[in-house]
């Protein structure tokens, strides 16, 4: 186990390093002047020259890269060109909001996706299976920003039962301010028993989480259905039936447990993919997370921010993969960590 972890950390480090080279070069080779972004579009040539020198942009690119790499290792990821604050501070400030949104979305996708998958596999090809197939393929195919707008139109515009945007209502910070415990505001409101803030936060997270969950939910439902169908053909299911175990017990406990490992693989990858999906969803719902920051950084060619976000997303993928492997080993003792 330890050896496995060490190996994985080693390969991850290589992947991250290569990525930093690629992204740094890409963001710097396009014809765009970081000094302009820093100083503003109307800064005069003298001001641009001053900023260029200050940011070290007049040095050869390889020197800039090594200086940047040194910073990455020592925890100085540079300042965002657009906000002039340290990129790491910017990301640290926004990551909790994104992770909370992601967690709620993935929890929803996992629970509902697995349930739908099991139900669909019960009588393949029948009407219920068709409906679930329609929903899951729809969820996978529909662009997130479009789905988000549709949900807003329906739940906010037509029904008026949910707030359209934001993480909390404005009033919360005056009436029931959240005491920070873990730094995750929704969790903190729950831990501190701040029910006003908690229910407000939950109401706000539903629509973005639903939007974000559409893709992984569809994927999980399809995968669960497929592997449930595989498992249903196996001998131990027939044996269990022969012993007279209840159909529900066979399906939801025996078969499902054996069908879960492939689903778990998908969950890990889908979670990492969904992290990048927050880019659109956060804009539509004005969610104060890294997605919004990322979109702004890309439009502004804010290269320290772009590199940092790419590194963070990549790290997210790597960690998700690692977690999937570990969980899979727990679920299926035959899968050794090697």
């Amino acid at each position: 186990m330890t050896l496995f972890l060490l190996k994985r950390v080693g390969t991850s480090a290589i992947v991250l390093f290569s990525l930093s080279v690629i992204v740094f070069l890409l963001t710097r080779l396009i014809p765009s002047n970081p000094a302009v972004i820093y100083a503003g579009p109307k800064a005069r040539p003298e001001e641009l020259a001053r900023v260029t020198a200050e940011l070290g942009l007049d040095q050869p690119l390889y020197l800039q890269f090594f200086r940047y790499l040194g910073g990455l290792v020592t925890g100085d990821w540079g300042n965002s060109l657009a906000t002039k604050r340290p990129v790491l501070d910017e990301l640290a400030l926004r990551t909790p909001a994104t992770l909370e949104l992601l967690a709620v979305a993935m929890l929803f996708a996992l629970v509902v996706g697995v349930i739908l998958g099991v139900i669909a596999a019960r009588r393949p090809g029948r009407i219920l299976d068709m409906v679930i197939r329609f929903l899951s393929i729809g969820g996978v195919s529909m662009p997130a920003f479009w789905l988000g707008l549709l949900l807003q139109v329906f739940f906010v515009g037509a029904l008026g039962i949910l707030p359209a945007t934001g993480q909390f209502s404005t009033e919360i910070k005056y009436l029931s301010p959240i005491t920070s415990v873990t730094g995750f505001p929704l969790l903190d409101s729950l831990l501190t028993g701040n029910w006003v803030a908690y229910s407000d936060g939950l109401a706000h997270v539903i629509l973005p989480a639903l939007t974000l969950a559409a893709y992984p939910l569809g994927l999980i439902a399809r995968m669960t259905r497929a592997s449930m169908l595989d498992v249903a053909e196996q001998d131990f299911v027939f044996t269990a039936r022969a012993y007279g175990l209840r159909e529900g017990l066979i399906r939801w406990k025996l078969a499902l447990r054996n069908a879960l490992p492939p689903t778990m693989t998908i969950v890990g990858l889908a979670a990492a993919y969904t992290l990048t999906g927050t880019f659109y969803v956060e804009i539509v719902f004005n969610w104060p997370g890294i997605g919004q920051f990322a979109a702004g950084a890309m439009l502004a060619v804010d290269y320290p921010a772009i590199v940092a976000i790419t590194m963070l997303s990549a790290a997210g993928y790597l960690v998700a993969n690692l977690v999937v492997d570990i969980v899979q080993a727990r679920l299926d003792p035959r899968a050794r960590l090697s």
Partner: protein
Amino acid sequence: MEVTQLRRTPRLTVALVLASAVVLSGCTATNNGNEPGGTTVLKVAASAAVTTWNPVTSFSTEALYMGNVYETLIWRNPDGAAEEFTPGLAETWAASSDGLTWTFDIREGATFHDGEPVNAEAVKLSIEAAKAKGGASFIWAPLESIEATDEYTAVFHLSYAAPLDLIAASTYGSWIVSPKALAAADADENYFEEGKDAGSGPFTVDSYTPGSSVVLKRYDDYWNKDALPYYSIVDIAITPDAVTSQQMLTSGEVDLATNIPLANVKTVADSIGAEVRTSNSPFNFVALFNTTRPPLDDPMVRQALSYAVPYDDIIDVGAQGYGTQSRAAVPKGIFPYSDDVPVYTQDLDKARDLLAQAGHEGGGFDLVLTYASENSAEANFVPLIKDAFAQIGVDVEVRGELFNQQWENAKADPASAQDIFVLYYWPTYSDAGADNLWSLFHSSEAPFFNLSYWKNAQFDTMIDDAAVLSGSDRAAAQAKYIEAMNLLVDQAPAIFLYDTQAILVSPPDLNVGQFNENYPFTTFFAPITPAS
């Protein structure tokens, strides 16, 4: 069987989901309660990001907040007001007849939010800081020195005549800042960045969450008791996406939204019973011809192309009708704008004739046009230019690039650069002679914003003279500028497309003050009151 081992996880999950469902059924969308804790809160959605809280270096969208927190010596009034200026921290001011010495009498009794008094020394230090390290430091180029002759008198000495009143009223680089904070910012360049402020305006920055919100609090010791804000708190949700801010306004999550998608303005106003108000803005669109090589080095070809452009359609498509055709790059309402400057109107026959006269019968040449892809108005209207030029036999290749790239490419080498550069432009302070006309069309060795790469000695002399006159005799300066603009229209180094209008969706339950085109990024919150 391993059944028992498996129980824990699913049951916990289901329990959590159920708990959430119970809490949810009890919630509805938040209401508009405006009285938390006895305070009055105005909730606003605005797109303005904060690139810095430093009032000296501020040169971007944070002007929305700066204009409510800081004050200038004097404020420039919107076009059409009875007076040209309103006193700010200066009660009175006067220029010497040669325009080289300007005296400002500073208001007594005004204080900065940190308790320091506003006086001539604070004015001197603030402007000196702006000239030394401001993002817009160049606006102070004519300034030689400032003298605090007594506690409340500041005398500005210029090296050449300039309209110092317009400069002192600038939305960038003219804020008066507490000397204590200036000293602190000298010691630590990030002093302001957590959201500190040191202004004297009607609001102070109460809290700032980067990328998410800015909360402004009323400054109860504000010197102008007549202009004390009604709202004790203004809570601004930073909302970069216009459709999102539209959702927030229509769902009642905010009371005011400063950024509604142009195409939806009417629908939104109808749905909440709001009034749509339009006013001048300092923003306009120009399409600059590359005058360094054939065929665009020939003024007749440029005139022909200027006649081919469907100006009205472009305003309809780019601005949803909220715009007026530009007169020689000076935005409507901004000095030295004049209705007397001629414009081109679309006349394809005349365009064909001119092309033929210039030796390009039936067109027959290709042009490359670049525009800023993040600017949706440009993306919408550039196809109209392509279509119109096709009708006179000129083929246009349209290229969308991020502005930053578009501009870098254009500055690199005029000989290989684009043929037409579509630019969205505005003057740094309210002098489109010293800015738009100079920056876009005065000749220079290396291109900056003069992306026509045009060199015309006659034009250069005219606007250089006008600039000097504008410090002492504004009317004479304007006459000179009009001469220069006539030359510009005749020589057509650019197509003058349109000036945009500022649009305010004014909700029925609020009285929102007049938009001031001289502070285009700022919504002034102090005058806003409930309608009832």
